[in-house]
């Protein structure tokens, strides 16, 4: 039996925000105590962690993790990605379908789960493709996918251009209670884009991605959510215009949610050095105004979740020109630091931060969130929110060595992560 004593517990689902001591036994939370157990009982614990001055959160859930397996083992694997997740405080990751072969059939979903069971130290939730091969042409068997264990459908980063097909996909997914993840982009407007359209694209002579591309797509998805009543999740969003529309949609109580990546929440195009391939992202980093809009939307609940958009790349894919570089950043290990940046800058408070990483994502998938309460699964992470560190991708648990935060100082570090009561991450200090 493990005792974590005197931790500041922040549990958004249970609305708990105070100092507690937690007993963990056989994978579950046995008791949540207001004060540490008396001295004579302490012999009962196999291990006691003095967590005073530290914060204890329910394990985080990521909605956008590229696990590399199957097909891209040189970029990432379940063994490495799950450790990266654990190092970032995540006890669950929803894995994206754009692996090879694409997760677009029940056997593929089962394969992913099998690989995860064998190698992952955190819980894995497969997201399946909404169309075969993510080609945007033929619907996948949503019911079958669901029973095989898929938790959601996704257009796989490639917007379905045929609006009628998209409507059918949403209607059908609704029948089986599956959320559909949609990519807010107009493929024509964004074709060949490398950076956000504006200041940077003008200066560097690289094709720009106009904010209108995202805004057009968001308008389209909101209209379809209203038409079909299906649960639509738009991710990752990056523009102020998208936020304006979302706010409207939420006011009208449409079944729409949205997520932003940790990097779009704290960085803007001005933060990236010219031609740094680590800053080659999709969507690109936007203007400071857009970033500010993200932060406002995080603080008022317009955005449901912060995601890692964990996209590890091998050096081959980043040691090339900006144009040739694969987009993406290995994000799992920097989400917490980035979100804490928002807390330290008083954009959001700690319970809200925990909400964006635990309850928000769970709500998007329609699953039960992790909680710190008696009888719950012991999915927990212990953090020191004032710990200073500097991002060095070479030290990542992930295979990915590409981080848009490379070299940046962060304040807030995960010290210990438990998944089903097992220690899956034990950081220094």
């Amino acid at each position: 039996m493990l005792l974590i004593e005197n931790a500041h517990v922040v549990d958004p689902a249970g609305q708990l925000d105070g100092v507690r001591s937690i007993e963990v036994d056989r994978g579950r939370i046995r008791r949540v105590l207001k004060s540490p157990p008396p001295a004579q009982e302490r012999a009962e614990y196999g291990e006691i962690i003095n967590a005073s001055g530290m914060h204890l959160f329910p394990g985080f859930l990521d909605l956008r993790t590229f696990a590399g397996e199957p097909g891209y083992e040189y970029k990432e694997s379940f063994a490495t990605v799950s450790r990266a997740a654990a190092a970032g405080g995540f006890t669950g990751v929803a894995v994206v379908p754009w692996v090879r072969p694409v997760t677009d059939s029940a056997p593929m979903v089962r394969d992913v789960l099998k690989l995860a069971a064998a190698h992952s130290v955190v819980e894995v939730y497969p997201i399946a493709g909404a169309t075969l091969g993510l080609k945007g042409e033929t619907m996948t068997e949503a019911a079958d996918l669901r029973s095989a264990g898929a938790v959601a459908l996704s257009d796989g980063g490639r917007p379905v251009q045929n609006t009628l097909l998209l409507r059918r996909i949403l209607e059908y997914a609704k029948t089986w209670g599956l959320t559909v993840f949609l990519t807010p982009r107009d493929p024509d407007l964004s074709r060949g884009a490398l950076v956000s359209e504006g200041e940077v694209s003008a200066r560097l002579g690289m094709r720009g991605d106009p904010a209108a591309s995202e805004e057009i797509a968001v308008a389209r998805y909101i209209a379809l959510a209203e038409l079909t009543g299906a649960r639509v999740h738009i991710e990752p969003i990056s523009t102020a215009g998208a936020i304006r529309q979302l706010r409207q949609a939420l006011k009208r109580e449409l079944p729409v949610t949205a997520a932003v990546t940790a990097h779009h929440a704290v960085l803007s195009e001005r933060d990236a050095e010219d031609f740094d391939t680590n800053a080659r992202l999709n969507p690109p980093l936007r203007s400071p105004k857009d970033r500010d809009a993200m932060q406002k939307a995080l603080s008022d609940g317009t955005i449901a979740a912060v995601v890692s958009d964990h996209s590890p790349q091998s050096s081959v894919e980043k040691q090339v020109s900006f144009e040739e570089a694969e987009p993406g950043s290995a994000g799992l290990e920097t989400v917490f630091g980035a979100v804490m940046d928002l807390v330290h800058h008083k954009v959001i408070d700690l319970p809200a931060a925990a909400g964006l990483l635990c309850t928000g994502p769970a709500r998007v998938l329609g699953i039960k969130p992790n909680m710190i309460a008696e009888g719950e699964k012991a999915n927990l992470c212990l953090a020191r929110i004032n710990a200073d560190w500097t991002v060095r991708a070479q030290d990542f648990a992930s295979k990915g060595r590409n981080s848009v935060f490379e070299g940046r100082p962060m304040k807030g570090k995960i010290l210990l992560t438990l998944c089903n009561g097992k220690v899956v991450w034990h950081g220094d200090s």
Partner: protein
Amino acid sequence: MKFNHRHVLSMEQFSAADIHAVLDTAENFLELNSREIKKVPTLRGRAVINFFFEPSTRTRTSFEIAGKRLSADMLNLSGSSSSVVKGESLVDTALTLRSMNPDIVVVRHSHAGAPHLMARHVGAHVINAGDGQHQHPTQGLLDLMTVRQRFGQIEGLKVAIVGDILHSRVARSDLIGFQKCGAEVWLCGPPTLLPPEFARFGARMTYNLEEALTGAHVIILLRVQAERMNSAFFPTAREYSQRYGLNSEKLKWARKDAVVMHPGPMNRGVEIDPSVADGAHSLILRQVENGVSVRAALMMMLLGGGDRPRGDA
């Protein structure tokens, strides 16, 4: 004055003083051109690699002549950025070149920033000979040189850059260079090729050619690429030519002593009428001549760092 640049990557890196120092040196190279023996031993034993990932006879030849005039060993390599050597990253290429121990690597690449990446790994001075639609600093310098030669100064001149601003690395280099030297720069083109974000450069912008040309000392025309005509940036070459092409009639809007420049190759009859291209106002051939001098000057200045001990020896 010290020339403190390890590489030549972008016009942004230069101060006005740097620019004038390069032009001063380049002016002195012009004399070489008129000599019977056009070669000097300055860079004897030095190796310059001309690495052109994108074909460009004009610029490559200019660098080659410049290097040869200085007695450098010139090595021309061409590569393909898109098709052939998949698997060899640009960094690999840079490391391979590094092992050849060159002194200067001249890089032309269809991707913005490729010379910057090379500069980090190649272990030699890098000169950007045009990267994507980003920068073409040696063209910018030769344009500045051509204008300074004609007007004796750059400060206070009105410079109109006309055409496909959006896709032009020459426009980006020119507009920064001319502004640094105190010229008033006007950008002019159809809205599809002159998006509003160019306002960040601080230049004046107009869609009206007459406004751009009125009172202009310098008119820089940009090439209209065939592929732009086919991707709906403007309806037809004919309409473009009518609105933004320069002919002798429209040239009258500019000052009497205005000069016309073009980075080449020209589309005669589209952005420039033959009578203007070959007319008295045209400095287009002068640009080519100055190009060699500017490139030789840069090679010399990059390799000759440190203070020159004066007086004795």
